[in-house]
Structures are given as structure tokens and as C-alpha cells.
């Protein structure tokens, strides 16, 4: 198996990496860069826990090889906000109790961010569609949809 050079910009910081041919973007983020906010759930593109924004598009990082991302920009949950200065979506998730076990939360936040980046004022149907690729087994989705609605209002 060959190794390949990759230049990747993650949350605004450029990394020059060498990756195995079969290394997934998810593995690079978690293991090489120690950005463990992005979670591995199913590993087959069904649950969305590993969702990140790649060149402006929401993707499952378990289904992208890092070597396919040479020259790309990646946004992960670590780039959203800091503990002292939360992103409006993060604050809304707290305010609306949109988190229970928390495992899907990074994926939900990135899906919500990708949606609001494209549609700052989404309808409830658009929010539900935007989040439809991330599974949550705790909340029943209601609080999450409400949180995204609130964050969209906040942004205006």
C-alpha cells in the first residue's frame, strides 16, 4: 500500500500530511490531528455522526479518503466555537436541551451549519431535510429542530 502527500486546511489551519492510501478523512482528523470531536458511529455512511464540511459541502468523513482531499478545506466541530465563545448553534443546542448522550451532536451541528451557510432562514421542512442524514437515538429530533430554528433567528 502506498502513502500519499496531502495538504489539508482544517478549521483555517494548514497541515502537510502523509497518509496511507486507505486512510479515511475521519481517521486523519481523529488520529493524526487529534480532533476527536468528529465521531465514528456506523462507519458506512448511514448515521452521520462523522459529518464534516468539506469545501463547503456536508459529507460523511467515513466515506472519503484523505488522499481525495488534497488542497481541500475541512470544517469540523472544533472550528465552530470555543468554550468561552460558543457558536450560536452550540448555544441554542444547550438552551433547547438538544443534547442527551451527545454522540450525534457534532454531526448535527455540522449539518445545521452547512444548512444555515446555504439557507440562513430555513423552513422547518428544510431544517428536517438538512438534518436527515444524522441519526439521533435520544432526543426524538424535536429539540434539535427547535434549536436550529432559534439559531437561525439569532443569526439575523
Amino acid at each position, binding site marked *: 500500500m502506498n502513502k*500519499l502527500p496531502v495538504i489539508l486546511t482544517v478549521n483555517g489551519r494548514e497541515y502537510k500530511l502523509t497518509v496511507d492510501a*486507505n486512510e*479515511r478523512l475521519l481517521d486523519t482528523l481523529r488520529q493524526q490531528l487529534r480532533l476527536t470531536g468528529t465521531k465514528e458511529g456506523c462507519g458506512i*455512511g448511514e448515521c452521520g455522526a462523522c459529518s464534516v464540511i468539506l469545501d463547503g459541502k*456536508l459529507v460523511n468523513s467515513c*466515506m472519503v479518503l484523505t488522499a*481525495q482531499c488534497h488542497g481541500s478545506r475541512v470544517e469540523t466541530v472544533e472550528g465552530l466555537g470555543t468554550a468561552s465563545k460558543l457558536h450560536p448553534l452550540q448555544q441554542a443546542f444547550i438552551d433547547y436541551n438538544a443534547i442527551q448522550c451527545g454522540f450525534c451532536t457534532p454531526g448535527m451541528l455540522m449539518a445545521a451549519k452547512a444548512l444555515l451557510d446555504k439557507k440562513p432562514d430555513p423552513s422547518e421542512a428544510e431544517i428536517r431535510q*438538512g438534518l436527515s442524514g444524522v441519526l439521533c437515538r435520544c432526543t426524538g429530533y424535536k429539540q434539535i429542530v427547535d434549536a436550529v430554528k432559534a439559531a437561525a433567528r439569532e443569526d439575523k
Partner: protein
Amino acid sequence: MLEFNLYRPGTLQEALKLLAEFKSSARVLAGGTDLLISLGSREREDVKNIIDITSLRELDFIREEDSRLRLGPLTVHAQIADSPHIRQGAGLLAAAAAAIGSPQIRNRGTIGGNIVNAAVCADTVPPLLALGATVKLERLGESRWLPLEEFITGPNRTGLEADEMLTEIAFAKLPATAGWGFMRLARREAMAIARMNVAVILDRDSRGRVVSACIAPGAVLASPARIPAAENILLGQCPDEERIHQAGQAVAAAMTAAGRRWSTPYKEPAIIALTERAIKQALEVEWR
């Protein structure tokens, strides 16, 4: 995941050279939503080389020329769902692309991959069959065009040779007089594989008689296919409830002729209703 060597050709020519060299030990990687999963499950141990074509911008296009639409195989489902050219000239393909998987899958999965993977449930295939799409296959130094129905030869099987790559999909835009329908049934509304889908295109004359009909179901046959027996029921007619129902029954008959299984008693009324709704959608009449 399996171990393999990954190649990142900078041009289509380079990619075709690599395919010519590696032949059946190689697979072409685009969106990866099917291939990377199968490489994880060790069902592809013959694969030693992966040719990543995601950076070949020359394969990523939607062009409208002389009332034809030409698509590059790297066009992702989200682009197809949002494209004004496709929504206007082939609305059923846009509707099918919009129904696939999740936003994440639609941002990554490509139309070329959907065709080459040739899953029986592939959502873009019935619309493309109804549109009479042809596909361009290229190998180093030569190319050929095949009608899509000849290209797909069975479940997960195509006429693609080991050194060939799908490089274009083309079809005529629908005339303004034509109506279309696309219906899909799955276990959930999102992130679910189609249990059945059906694409319909009907063109009518000024008196409302059907002058051309395409009815192409997927997931209920060994491969998606047009059903002439169903189309003939509507041809030359101003379809009423009875005719529309008969066309649905003809699709169900094609399904049961392809094989019966435990789920067939459930699927028969479902495919009839789904076909009826797709026909009514194409005729722009209420179906609820």
C-alpha cells in the same frame, strides 16, 4: 479497510492509461459512497489498485446543447437535483436525485457511480431509461456509445470492460408537451434504499391522447427496465382510472414474472398504486 495502492491521475488520459495497465485489479473511485463501503467489507479482495478520479474536473459538467442534455459522470446527486437545466428538461431525474440517501450522500455520490454500480434499486436509472439515455464508454484511444438498457446487464452487472470508464451520459430534453412522474417507496422518508421506484414519461397530443409513453420501474426487477406491456395500455388513449390501473397491473405482472418471494403479496398492490400515482403525476391529475 482493504489495503490498496491509490493513484490520483491529473487528466482523463492518465486515468485511462492506469486502467489499461491494471485492468481488473483496479477500480475507479469517484464519490466513494458505494465503493469505499464495499472495500471495508472484504468482498473485493481482488482489488489492488484504486484510481481516484474525483479531481478530474473535465468529467464534472452539465451541458445543454441542441435540446440535448449531457452530463459528466462526476456530477453529484445534489447538483442534479438543483440544476435548472435538469429540472426544466428532465424533471424526473432531478426528483430521483433529490430522493437519494441524505444531504451527505447527495453531496458526494455521483450519477456515474449510480449507473456503473448498477444496483437494482439505483434511483437515477429508471428516469434515465425513460429518457432514453445513452452512455459513453472510453478506453485508451477509443470510445463507444451504448443505450443505457444495453449497458446494464443484470443486478450489479454492466457491459463495462475492465479497461473502460464511463465518461458521459446524454439524452434528449423532454418536449414541453410531455409530463413526467417519479415515485419511490422506502422504509423511511430519508436515508433509505428504495424498495421500489418508478419513472413515467407521457407525451400527449392536443386532444389529450398519449402519443408516447415510457414506464420504467426499478428495484422490483432484476434490473430497472421499461415495461412495454404497461406503456401499450396507455398509447393512443386518453387514460382514465381503469386504463391507469391496468397499466399498474402490467407493471406488477412484470415484477411477478421476474420471480416471487415472501414479500410479493405486499409488493403487488404497492407497485400498482405507485405506478398509478406516477402516471397521474405525469398527467398532472390529483392522486391523493
